[in-house]
């Protein structure tokens, strides 16, 4: 500052210090309207907190954006489609331009879909963009939630955001299903028939739910208009609300960040919203839009004209739902034919367990996991630094096990395609998967846990002995040894930034607690042992110093260059907190 420092309360001084910058033409032009808005809604006040908000940069943070941008593409392409689609099951004779269906009876819904595909310019492109976007939307949400899971971003204070995410995943899948059922073609109509049978088989309320859903018997004449309402109004409205809440919470909590030099729990390091983040995020939106458009241009999806209009007496070999329903399809195919007969009633477990139970299990487990882990660790502090997956081997192993179980069901959903493509027996595939669905996740759990612990060991090696340099020394005695060079301070900090979560021994100091409370605590401690007993503890300062001396490459551990005496960390038994 050239002028003498003025006091903070001197308003005129503050004004004089405001630099008079030469504004470019765009700013000059926007100046008038902006002032008009600001006078009425206080634009500057609103934008102040967000203008230079900081977002950390990592590719894995862009997965949620892929989902968000696909959703925007879905809305835009969806609006286009609603302009021509007729959600009606009234029967008409087809007189459109697709020759191979000429003269056939079909619903208005199917005929209008053919119209969009063949007679509206750009119609087929928009239909395909819409369907590809739906597939990518759910894929991105799932991948994003896997990233959140494996990095522990669901921990306090973000549990609510995790639940909102699970809700959005559910709604996304529901909307996908209702969406592809709208054209009333043979493939999706078969899917609706399946859903009809599934609903009917629900114990106690099945026929009621079926008649209420279809307004009577299958297929009736109301299911397509009802699905239309759900697809374009109900679910998008819920999704928009949840997205707003989801993003608001991300802004409020600020984004998490990976461990690294300069990054601590109390700060967030990254780029400001304007200009860098806006350019990258805006650019990414256009890239997602562009990629989905290119897919709609070059890759055919859901060619309903080949499937033909829905006919309850027709079917195609290889009838599968869209990929995100594949795990339910697999469950239904693999399930043995259990049915109970009690009194004069039938309990169709063969359909109800995989049909309803699997969805409930999948989303239920996802929803409660953060609370289970919080209970196990007893951790009540806020977490803003992400976990590297290897540092929580049990959580990572659970995640991989869940993915494996899901994958087995997925494969089960395509068991007839597995049989034809790989020339194996359909029945053998089914029997194998019935077992694999339970056994493979266990194997995956054990293998993943060991891999994580192995990675932790290699991290520990790097910490204590440095990185391998590739230079081999030969001692006069003839012994070979590889020279290690010390890792940077930044890396050393990153490798040890996580917390050691202890495996606790059973509590001994239990005075003053009820039997129930004691039992609960002992169970919790047992759970911590299951979770953390194999996990490697971080090297202590003493160990690092000792290793450094051993290698004769002194590591500077504190800024002032002195080596402080370090007390060895004492393993304490944790007492029950009052």
């Amino acid at each position, binding site marked *: 500052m050239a002028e003498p420092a003025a006091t903070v309360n001197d308003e005129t001084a503050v004004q004089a210090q405001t630099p008079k910058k030469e504004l470019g033409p765009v700013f000059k032009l926007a100046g008038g309207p902006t002032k008009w808005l600001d006078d009425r809604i206080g634009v500057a006040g609103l934008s102040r907190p967000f203008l230079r908000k900081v977002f950390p940069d990592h590719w894995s943070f862009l997965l949620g954006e892929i989902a968000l941008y696909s959703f925007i593409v879905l809305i835009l392409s969806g609006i286009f489609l609603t302009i021509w689609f007729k959600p009606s099951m009234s029967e008409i004779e087809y007189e459109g331009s697709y020759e191979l269906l000429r003269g056939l009876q079909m619903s208005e819904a199917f005929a209008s879909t053919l119209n969009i595909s063949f007679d509206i310019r750009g119609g087929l492109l928009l239909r395909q963009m819409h369907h590809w976007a739906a597939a990518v939307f759910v894929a991105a949400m799932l991948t994003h939630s896997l990233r959140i899971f494996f990095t522990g971003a669901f921990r306090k204070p973000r549990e609510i955001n995790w639940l909102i995410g699970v809700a959005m995943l559910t709604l996304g899948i529901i909307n996908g299903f209702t969406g592809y059922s709208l054209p009333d073609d043979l493939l999706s109509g078969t899917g609706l028939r399946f859903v009809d*049978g599934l609903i009917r*088989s629900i114990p106690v309320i099945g026929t009621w739910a079926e008649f209420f859903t279809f307004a009577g018997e299958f297929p*009736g*004449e109301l299911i397509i208009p009802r699905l239309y309402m759900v697809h374009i109004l109900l679910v998008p409205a819920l999704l928009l609300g949840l997205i707003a809440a989801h993003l608001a919470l991300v802004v409020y909590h600020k984004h998490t960040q990976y461990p690294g030099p300069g990054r601590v729990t109390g700060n967030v390091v990254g780029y400001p919203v304007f200009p860098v983040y806006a350019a990258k995020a805006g*650019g990414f939106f256009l890239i997602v839009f562009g990629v989905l458009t290119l897919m709609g241009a070059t890759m055919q999806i859901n060619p309903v004209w080949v499937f033909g209009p829905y006919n309850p007496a027709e079917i195609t070999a290889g009838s599968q739902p869209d990929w995100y329903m594949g795990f339910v399809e697999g469950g239904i195919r693999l399930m043995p034919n259990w049915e109970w007969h009690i009194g004069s009633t039938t309990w169709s477990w*063969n359909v109800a367990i995989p049909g309803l139970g699997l969805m409930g299990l999948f989303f239920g487990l996802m929803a409660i996991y953060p609370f289970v882990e919080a209970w196990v660790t007893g951790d009540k502090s806020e977490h803003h630094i992400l976990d590297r997956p290897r540092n929580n081997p049990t959580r990572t192993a659970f995640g991989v096990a869940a993915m494996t179980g899901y994958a087995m069901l997925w494969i089960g959903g395509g068991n007839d395609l597995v049989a034809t493509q790989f020339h194996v027996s359909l029945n053998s595939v089914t029997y194998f998967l019935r077992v694999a669905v339970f056994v493979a996740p266990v194997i995956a759990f054990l293998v993943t846990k060991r891999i994580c612990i192995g990675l932790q060991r290699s991290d520990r090696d790097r910490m204590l002995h440095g990185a391998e340099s590739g230079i081999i020394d030969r001692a006069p005695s003839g012994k070979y040894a590889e020279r290690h060079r010390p890792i940077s301070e930044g890396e050393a900090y990153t490798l*040890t930034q996580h917390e050691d979560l202890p495996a606790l021994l059973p509590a001994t100091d239990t005075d003053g607690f009820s039997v129930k409370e004691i039992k609960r605590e002992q169970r919790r401690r047992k759970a911590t042992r299951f979770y953390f007993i194999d996990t490697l503890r971080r090297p202590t300062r003493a160990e*690092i110093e000792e290793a450094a001396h051993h290698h004769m490459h002194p590591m500077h551990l504190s800024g002032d260059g002195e080596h402080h005496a370090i007390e060895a960390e004492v393993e304490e038994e944790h007492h029950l907190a009052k």
Partner: protein
Amino acid sequence: MSEDTSHGHPGTEVATVDEERYPVPDPGLEEHLPRLTDVDEKAADRATRQVATFFGLVPILSIGFVVVYFAVPGDAWVDFGPLRANSRNLLLGLTFGLALLFLGIGAVHWARKLMDDKEMIDYRHSAASSDDDKNYVLTELDKVVDESKITRRKIIGRTLLAALATILLPMIVGLADLGPWPTKKKRAETIERTIWAPGVRVVQDVTFKPIKPEDIEIGQLINGEPANLQELHGSEFQIEKAKAAVIVVRMDPNTITIPPSREGWQIGGILCYSKICTHVGCPISLWEQQTHHLLCPCHQSTFDLGDAGKVVFGPAARPLPQLPITTDAEGYIVAQRDFLVPPGPSYFERDSRHDSP
């Protein structure tokens, strides 16, 4: 070193950096290294040109889209290697898609190469509200409750709760006409009956041609419908078809098991079964003429048509219903009566354990 992490939010704190918990102290943000475009003016110019090119291509592609939209006819095809597709769809998508892509790539390239890339630090606040806010809210809420007088006049609260709970009732009951109520009587009229009746001819699906037994060879499969289905249209047609579709198969009588109660249901090895799977209702046509097994393509339920439609594999729990058939005066195959059990998926109210003969 305990930093003041309370930037902008006095009184709040987050877990501070604790030397004892972390064996290696924070070395601080890494030194910011410049990019090539930061130090080399030529590289920066090159990057600028690249960004401008990406942006510059967008108008060309956008106009290209408009040209294609009006100029390319809807029946033109492109034949290029594995791609045999509609030209208009392909070109509209390529022009628009690349326009979007280039616009996006240009923006990102600008950000990565030219925009200032110094990282900034922002400080977090605790997710919990400040003690100040909490105290204020609690105190004021107390006052609010007092001012509402609800604590003194408790009956207001109690009646309010009851009112709020029950006001939902009209809204829920208002949905009761979502569909007809599947009472026992309604079920008997709908899912428990089909349009098959004594004397209704079995005709081939799509062509509705009636069938004589001598037209059918051993190993033949016919996808059939009741002849009276032709009288129905629209939604009624679909509903009845979804229950009444049948398959007629002919097998060598010496190779199949016919239960005594069903001796009269067949015509010399010609049997008629429901086409609708008892699992979740997909129509089944996949019949192996040598094994007599019928495989549903949806979930692979397999039925043995040579053994009263018994389930031999897969998730179906109920055997496939059989339709008793005979011939009429002119020698065409007709149904003797409607199905004895409802075709299609099982449901709670009906005990299906006696469906096997």
